[in-house]
């Protein structure tokens, strides 16, 4: 130890022993005199800084020094910090009702810097929208992006090193909507929520400071009112509400992480920036793939193909509050991602830790730490959001949230999708080993998001349906090529298949998942330039797509028009008819047996069995949706110059027609849902087939509209006229033939008239005057997406359409010039056809059918003149 260090150490020790000489409570024997002398000296020499912090409650020293005094917060910053880029995030530490936001959840990050002007410090919000490769343009840009002033704070004092001290209480103790505890992805966000901040009930709780981050925790109180968005009815009124929020500030590095250009042929979340290049006439959007800074610690060894550790691993902390038996599964699932990184030469890329109890600097609510959190709330969901350095797309923080009722989701899926083949799950208490395995799948999926991966919704569609019944295939590949798909459990498997060795679960990782990580995280050495590096990474994808469909990426379908039927939620296999037939057969099997599988003791009130009953109906409707998405569907492939893949492919007409016929047959065969033996035990449900028919009718009636948009984009296959004719024949043939109608047929005809009148904006009796101008437009906003896990992915913030080989980084291709052939006139025509048919047959129909026809004719007459 050198002399300087010894001096420093002794000064520190002294400071600790005599912490508060200003209070006069020292241990010196000559106390009185000393005190007087000190007081006198202090009185004459006290600086403004010393006076300000004379009786401060706490001081926390880090890259910013944080002072707490009299309920206020002061920042003390060095001059060198002015202009440095920082991000601030707000995390819920505790909350009085987690339906407004779960513990650990965060809002968007605020990207800002501090600047100084005379005697005030400004907090400026920065924009990272623009980049340039030209120094002159950069100068111009810097003058156009000075940052909007969020706060202007007077310098209260100057610190010992001429640092600036200013009051920041208002940042942490005000109603700042950018850092609100009322989060958009919370349970109550589906309602209209009005909140009122209660400043007199709010206060600062604590502050911490470290070398590269600081955090301040506030207790903020509000009252809020919750209203139904549809009826406007007040559900909760003036509810008291308190949340503790930890706001942490991270100092961003001066030098940004080397970005990788995103490619629409592979599913990575991305950060969009606008490039002003001296080489370009106009600005051009560029997209950086969001990914962690993962660099080999020993480049030479890495290049020799040895396994090396990264300079900085990605560390995930597992919530200590997970239910005990969940914890090993959660830990295991996170750690398993190392397998994928090892394939590209990284050892221990992922580090899994429990919340440490021996590290005082650890704080799960600080945005510096990546945490997998448990949320005790009745939401059947999970999420894996991440936050990035807005300059480069470098992921700087990620969280996984597992909501308690994900257990409900898993239990229903496992039961409804696999109980035909797996006797072990024919219970309301699914064995923990099976449930835990499913939980691992959920955690791995969410963790995939935190590594930058988007959903690959086409992954399951490349697997041959028959292979899903093959023990060797399922053992090797599971049910899908990517766990980032919404492909759940093997509903194709038949009774006896499990015993043969068929796997019923998704794989640990699919071939695509491994490929995607390889693409995103394999370093490119010696490229020489960013442009050349981009050529290389593009080339990887081009090459891989030639090799195998198992690497295909298909983006999530957020709209029902131009729907790519390969990219569906909750589906399996490459043959939708075959897979759905298996699935429906299984549902019938489960329906006729499940009442006997469940022990009355375990489910005395039949609540579980009611849940499963509804699960069966929903699963059935999913199969119908999987099928019908093909009618008017359109396969879309992302291509770049030089790719041989076709951009658009219509679904073969014969397939569409066959599916239409199959669904119509299904429509007639729903009586199995009205199983008396089952319904007689459940609470009053009515006639389930009515409800399912209603849902099917809506799906079928809209099919011609989608066909009218998609048909002919690549080839002419199944026109809307053919589709409409098929539906018309199905609905009206009994009338044409003068047959007596069943209740279901009458309902179908009523629905035909009602649906097409709505689609054509023909007003019906009972419609309000405010009928939507055109239901055709309204349809475009709908989608088939069902219950899913996770939402709120940050890729939803992608910008406007600018660069679009197919749809590029957008969700939907351009279709400005395609409004479809189906017009109001087409609808008028088929309504008239129906009308004439009824008119011709009503007088010879039974009394009941006659009444039905007359009412429908009057419905049409109401506005179709």
């Amino acid at each position, binding site marked *: 130890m050198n002399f300087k260090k010894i001096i420093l150490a002794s000064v520190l020790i002294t400071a600790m022993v005599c912490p508060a000489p200003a209070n006069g409570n020292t241990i010196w024997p000559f106390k009185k005199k000393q005190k007087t002398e000190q007081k006198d000296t202090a009185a004459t020499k006290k600086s403004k800084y010393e006076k300000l912090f004379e009786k401060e*409650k706490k001081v926390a020293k880090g890259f910013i020094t944080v002072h707490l005094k009299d*309920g206020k917060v002061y920042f003390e910053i060095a001059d060198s910090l002015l202009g440095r880029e920082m991000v601030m995030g707000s995390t819920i*530490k*505790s*909350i*009085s*009702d*987690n339906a407004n936001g779960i513990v650990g959840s965060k809002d968007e990050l605020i990207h800002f810097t501090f600047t100084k002007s005379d005697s005030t410090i400004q907090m400026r919000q920065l924009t990272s929208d623009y980049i340039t490769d030209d120094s002159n343009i950069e100068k111009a840009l810097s003058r156009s992006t000075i940052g909007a002033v969020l706060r202007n704070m007077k310098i209260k004092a100057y610190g010992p090193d001429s640092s600036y001290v200013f009051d920041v209480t208002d940042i942490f103790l005000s109603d700042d909507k950018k850092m609100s505890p009322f989060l958009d992805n919370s349970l109550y966000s589906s309602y209209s929520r009005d909140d009122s901040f209660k400043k*007199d*009930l*709010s*206060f*600062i709780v604590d*502050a911490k400071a470290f070398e590269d981050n600081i955090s301040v*925790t506030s*207790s903020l109180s509000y009252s809020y009112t919750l209203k139904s968005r549809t009826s406007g009815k007040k559900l909760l009124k003036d509810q*008291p*509400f*308190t949340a*503790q929020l930890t706001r942490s500030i991270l100092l961003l590095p001066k030098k940004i992480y080397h970005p990788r250009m995103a490619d629409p042929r592979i599913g990575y979340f991305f950060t969009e920036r606008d490039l002003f290049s001296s080489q370009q006439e106009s600005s051009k959007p560029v997209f950086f793939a969001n990914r962690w800074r993962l660099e080999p610690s020993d480049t030479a060894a890495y290049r020799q193909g040895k396994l090396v550790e990264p300079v900085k691993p990605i560390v995930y902390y597992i*919530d*200590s*509050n997970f239910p*005990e*038996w969940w914890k090993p599964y959660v830990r295991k699932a996170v750690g398993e991602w190392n397998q994928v990184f090892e394939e590209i030469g990284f050892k221990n890329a992922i580090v899994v830790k429990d919340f440490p109890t021996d590290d005082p600097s650890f704080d799960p609510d600080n945005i510096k730490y990546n945490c997998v959190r*448990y949320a*005790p*709330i*009745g939401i*059947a969901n999970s999420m894996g959001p991440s936050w990035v350095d807005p300059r480069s797309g470098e992921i700087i923080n990620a969280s996984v949230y597992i909501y*308690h*009722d994900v257990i*409900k989701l898993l239990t229903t899926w496992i039961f409804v999708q696999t109980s035909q083949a797996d006797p072990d799950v024919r219970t309301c*208490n*699914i064995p*923990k080993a099976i449930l835990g395995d499913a939980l691992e799948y959920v955690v791995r999926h969410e963790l995939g998001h935190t590594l930058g991966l988007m959903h690959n919704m086409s992954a399951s569609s490349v697997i041959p349906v028959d292979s899903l019944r093959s023990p060797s295939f399922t053992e090797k590949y599971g049910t899908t090529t990517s766990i980032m798909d919404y492909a759940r459990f093997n509903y194709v498997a038949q009774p006896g298949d499990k015993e043969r060795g068929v796997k019923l679960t998704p794989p640990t990782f699919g071939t695509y998942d491994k490929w995607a990580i390889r693409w995103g995280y394999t370093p490119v050495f010696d490229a020489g330039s960013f442009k050349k590096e981009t050529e290389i990474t593009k080339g990887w994808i081009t090459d891989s797509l030639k090799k195998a469909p198992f690497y295909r990426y298909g983006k999530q379908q957020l709209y029902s028009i131009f729907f790519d039927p390969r990219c569906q939620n909750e589906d399996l296999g490459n043959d939708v008819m075959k897979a759905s037939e298996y699935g429906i057969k299984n549902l019938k099997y489960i329906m006729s047996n499940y009442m006997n599988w469940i022990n*009355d003791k*375990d489910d*005395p*009130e039949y609540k579980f069995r009611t849940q499963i009953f509804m699960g069966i109906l929903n699963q059935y409707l999913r199969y119908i949706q999987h099928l019908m998405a093909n009618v008017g569907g359109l396969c879309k492939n992302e291509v770049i110059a030089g790719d041989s893949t076709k951009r658009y492919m219509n679904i073969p007409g014969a397939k569409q027609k066959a599916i239409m016929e199959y669904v119509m047959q299904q429509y007639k065969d729903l009586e199995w849902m009205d199983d*008396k033996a089952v*319904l007689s*035990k459940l609470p*009053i449900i*009515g*006639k389930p087939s*009515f*409800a399912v028919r209603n849902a099917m009718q809506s799906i079928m009636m809209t099919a011609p509209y989608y066909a009218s948009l998609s048909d002919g984009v690549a080839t002419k296959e199944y026109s809307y006229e053919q589709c409409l004719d098929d539906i018309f024949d199905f609905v009206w043939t009994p009338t044409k033939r003068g047959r007596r109608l069943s*209740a279901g047929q*009458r*309902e179908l005809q*009523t629905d035909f008239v009602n649906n097409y009148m709505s689609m054509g904006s023909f007003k019906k*009796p*009972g419609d309000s005057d405010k009928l939507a101008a055109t239901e055709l437009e309204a349809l475009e906003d709908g989608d088939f997406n069902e219950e899913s896990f996770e939402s709120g992915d940050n890729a939803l913030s992608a910008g406007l359409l600018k660069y679009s080989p197919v749809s590029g980084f957008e969700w939907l291709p351009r279709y400005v010039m395609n409004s479809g052939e189906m017009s109001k006139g087409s609808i008028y025509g088929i309504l008239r056809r129906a009308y004439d048919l009824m008119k011709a047959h009503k007088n010879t129909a039974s009394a009941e059918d006659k*009444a*039905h026809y*007359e*009412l429908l004719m*009057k419905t049409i007459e*109401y506005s179709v003149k």
Partner: protein
Amino acid sequence: MKIKILSIILALTATVMAFSPESTAKKPAEKKTDDYAGFIAKKGLIKKEGFVKIYKKGKDVYLEIPDSVIGRKVMINSSVRQSSSPFLSEGTNVSGKQSTYQIEKTDSLVLFLAPAPSICVKDGDESISRAIKKSQAQAIVYAFPIRYRNTDSTAVVIKASKLFSPSDKKVIDFRAKEFNGNLIYDSECKADMTQLKSIKAYSKSVGVVQEASYKLTVVVGFFLSSDKKAFSGDFLSTMTLLGNSDMPKRITDDRIGTDKISFTSFGSSQQSKTEYCAARWDLRKGRKITVYLDTLINPAWRAAVKEGIEAWNPAFEKIGLGKVIEVRDFPDGSGFSAEDPMISTVRYSPGERESLYGNIHTDNTTGEILSINISLPGNYLNGIRKASAYTISDVDTRYQDYNLSTGAVCDVIRAQVMGLFGKCLGIGANYAGSMAYSPEQLRSPAFTKAHGITGSVTDDVLFNIMARPGDKEKGVVTITDRIGPYDYYAIEWLYRQFPKGKDEEAALDSLIRSKKNIPEYQYVPKQKGNPDPRAVAYDLGNDPFASFEAGLSHLKFTAANADKWLDHDYIPEDYRNLFIEWVWLKQCNYIYSLSSLVGGIYENDIRTGNGLPHFAPVPVTDQKKAINTIMDAFRDMSWMDKNRKLLDISGMYSSVDQITNANAFSQSGLISRLDNVAMANRVAGSSYSPEEYLTDVQNSIMKNVRKGKLKAQEDVSITRYLFWLIQNSPVMTANYKEATSAGGKSSLAENLTPAISDVPEVYTADLGNLCYTSLEKARKILSYGRSVSKDAYAKGKLDYLISIAEDGLGTDKK
């Protein structure tokens, strides 16, 4: 399976106090926190001492809160002491809904936190408990800066006026209270007209008496009155220390009726669920329920109240708890105050209300009932008259007189207090109670003496309406005189204590199973849409037709004889005027009860293995019989017109029969049963189809039309029937509106009866086609009736009815 339940009482998170924050609220400028002595010595300071010290200084209230109270729960209650309206009279509870808080303290603040949500973690996973503690932390409702600390720093003083502010709806809330016969929708306190009058201290409470004035917005009919009503009163607002209840929760079972408190449960392998625990008294370790009786109530009435309450003691004795209920008169002196919210009372409340009412204070975390209050209102005698005169006066002649004898009054008080006190013990109303016995049993002196008249006093049963004149003399019990077998059973389920180690859940389940298929133990709660015909009021016995007939016979006797009872000048005019209308409404009640047979479904519990189907439809013959009985009853209301003297006493009535004709269909209850018939047909396998139902109703309604005859005002009833058919189809409604707007009938179109469909059915079918067919048939019958009618006026009326039908059908009249 024995479920270990770990109840989490969410304490204030430690982090609130991790750092000692200063309040951002303005600090008291006038005094520093060490000037306690100066505060105590303030001139004019008034002090009372309870579990905290309370001070009054001018218009301000201060509380001195000792450390021992920090972390404890308190409840704020408000009641009226005196007022400007007898509708909100002394003792009326006007507490806000949010009334329980937990007191916590930081360095500079005293916090009042919202109550912890009630959450249970099954299988005892402490990790989940910790997560919940952070996720369901308590909200801060009030934060009071600490003004002074006492000399040894064991207590702090806060200015707490806000805690009792009469303008805060958390403190005083009139909403949904009755005011001059209307309901209060909202209130606005006149802040400049409030005044702190005094402070109070009781054993576990402190409080303030304040005078305050309000403007009340009331609901008149379906509308808010623009005329705001002025109201002033003195209010006592108390803060009461709640005990640290450790009473174990008893999870409710929907096979037995209990009052309940909801909570959320989490299990590590199961989804979160809303569950319920029973509200009940803590009777462990020999604890008693003591009820104090207001000495303002006359001694005879008091005795009846006492008997009514103590009638429950045998049920507790049966399960070995002894006489747990004690009823005492208000003691003199000794610090007793009936205003203490933790004391259970029965008080006289000099308001204009006519029936018993009360409230129950329950600890929402455990379900422990802390205290109850029952009020005997000023106009209670009127209520007793109305309940008895039309119902039983042929059997028990004491109820014919306006001036009821003490014995007659006390019999009703005893019975009604008994019923209400059952609810005070945590028992939910059991509407099957009245169906326990057969008509024969209910007319047997020996049987009724041995068993009473109802399975449960929590059902709406007062008199034995099955009794006929002369039965009382033979010894038949004619009024509820004891708690029923179901009540014994419910008390056993709620209060039986089990030794440690005994599987309580299994024992309670076994108790329920032991009562299967025994009529007097059946339980049916009140239901939305009345799918189960057992869940109705105003009936008695297991034969609803006999019950209906008996009820009607009492009414007929009353209508034939009441003029003699009413012909006295000392009887108030309004009582005499309204008498006949009460008779008529009572008849409507009986009819409404009977209508629940139409489309009725008996929902049986299948868990107890009683061998009954889950859903059983009411037999078709009974459904049809109910329709005919109801319509026949309406068709023959001439008995109400026979006693001209009674009609004269009641006002200028030409004929009650006419009113009945006009309202026959809309008052029949049948108007809401179409959905029920469809549901019974589909769900419970009833062979009575909606088509057949519509035909039967129509045949009954059109009985006279077919003959070309219409009774006076009968066309009005048929009009309503046609409207009902029309409004079941949007097409017909649109047709009707279009036709009538052109033809000047729009005012009637607005009278279309709103759709009534509360049936809890998930999937409903479109019944519009059926109603369309029925309307067509109705048109044909009306046309036929017109063709055979020889009465010019009847023809005119029928023409009008035909035009309504055609408007609905959209018939082209050209």
